[in-house]
């Protein structure tokens, strides 16, 4: 959406080639600001915070930006003053005061203050949660997700989507399988690396229910850019209801869909709780049809998308560690997809 807006602006300024340089610059600046403003509503914007942590980061960003802008304008104003407006020799004393005051003392105080203020935010970003812990594991190129309920109930395994209760702080524990990834849901909070062999902690306190988009933010291989996920923030009571449903075993209907799943060996990699299939190589599919997206945030959860994915995952996500099933007929693919959609 942001990109589209920006293009419109480009064509507009391009349509007026007789404009003076100054005017083009003004238009470009206005365009950039508008593009920035247009991004504000997006589901993956750090400037449209939907949580306490993201709001804090957005505030730091704006304060730093404004401080930088003031400094920039003041410094260039000073340059303009001494070179254009008032180009006269100045006394050594004033020059030294300017150099030591403006070049050493002022930046020290200013940067020191901004640094201290920025650092103070860091403990808040991983403040202890209210009980619920979500474990997220980075894989190439998808996410393991596990909920440890606040009441101490057994862990609930899921994948490729994170759901969080609004108005509560949730602990997030991050790990990775083989390579470094980074967990980042800009609308909810800051980013944190996921490193093989260690657990990194952060916490998120979303405030606005809604669906936001996260993205792996550390290059992790061929399809890194296609490793995203949706974060669904629910009102606390709805979240509890959802989590108990997610904890329940699947109740897959018997029939040709289940037969295909068994025949093609999908259960050699995927788990569907409540069935004989318990493998952990690929994402847990117990409630796959209930997710808001397919294949880690890159496709809609529809029958067509599912059929296309199963036919040739590599065409959709180059390097994906799932084999293609292009030997299945379109009817078989649809049957399998329809059956998976029923796993809600």
């Amino acid at each position: 959406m942001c990109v589209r807006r920006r293009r419109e602006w480009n064509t507009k300024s391009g349509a007026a080639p007789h404009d003076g340089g100054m005017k083009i610059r003004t238009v470009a600046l206005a365009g950039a600001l508008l593009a920035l403003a247009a991004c504000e509503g997006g589901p993956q914007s750090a400037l449209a915070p939907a949580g306490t942590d993201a709001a804090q980061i957005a505030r730091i960003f704006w304060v730093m930006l404004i401080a930088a802008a003031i400094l920039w304008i003041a410094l260039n104003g000073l340059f303009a003053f001494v070179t254009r407006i008032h180009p006269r020799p100045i006394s050594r004393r004033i020059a030294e005061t300017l150099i030591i005051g403006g070049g050493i003392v002022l930046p020290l105080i200013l940067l020191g203050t901004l640094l201290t203020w920025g650092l103070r935010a860091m403990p808040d970003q991983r403040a202890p949660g209210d009980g619920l812990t979500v474990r997220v594991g980075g894989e190439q190129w998808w996410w393991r997700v596990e909920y440890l309920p606040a009441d101490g109930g057994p862990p609930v395994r899921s994948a490729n989507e994170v759901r969080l209760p609004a108005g509560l702080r949730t602990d997030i524990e991050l790990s990775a399988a083989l390579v470094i990834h980074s967990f980042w849901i800009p609308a909810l909070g800051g980013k944190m690396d996921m490193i093989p062999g260690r657990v990194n902690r952060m916490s998120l306190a979303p405030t606005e229910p809604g669906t936001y988009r996260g993205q792996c933010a550390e290059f992790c291989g061929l399809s890194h850019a296609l490793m995203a996920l949706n974060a669904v923030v629910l009102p606390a009571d709805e979240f509890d209801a959802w989590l108990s449903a997610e904890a329940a075993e699947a109740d897959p209907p018997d029939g040709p869909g289940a037969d295909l799943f068994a025949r093609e060996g999908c259960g050699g990699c995927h788990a569907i709780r409540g069935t004989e299939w318990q493998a952990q190589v690929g994402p847990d599919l117990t409630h796959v049809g209930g997710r808001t997206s397919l294949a880690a945030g890159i496709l809609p959860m529809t029958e067509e998308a599912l059929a296309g994915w199963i036919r040739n995952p590599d065409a959709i996500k180059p390097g994906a560690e799932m084999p293609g099933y292009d030997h299945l007929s379109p009817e078989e693919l649809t049957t399998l997809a329809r059956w998976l959609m029923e796993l809600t």
Partner: protein
Amino acid sequence: MAERKQLHREFSEELSSLWRIAIAPSVWAIHFVASYGLAAVWCAKWSDATLLGDVSAWRVLICGASVVALGIIGWIGWKAWRQWDFLEDWDYTHPLATEEDRHEFLGHAAFLLAVLSAVGVIATTLPALLISTCT
């Protein structure tokens, strides 16, 4: 021959100034490595250990190291300031190949390096002051 002896004497007089120039940045470097190393090792091995009430021990240790480091740097800085001798003649340029200019230049340089090192040590300490947990 006598001239060479004279030169030799002049330069060896500044030997201690040369050492003094290196001390403040070295203290900063050692403090930096020690702080980061201490925080990493301590958090990996004994993250919950505390000192002085309920403050994490590694924070107390780093802040203590900072006080020591700033003390040394402050002392060096003060000696360098005296050596620069700025207030006496308000003269901070040392362009001549004279004993006095050489002496004051080395003081000037040591003083600026001490200021920079002090800022560096404080910046290294800020995370220990403001970030209260290992994780």
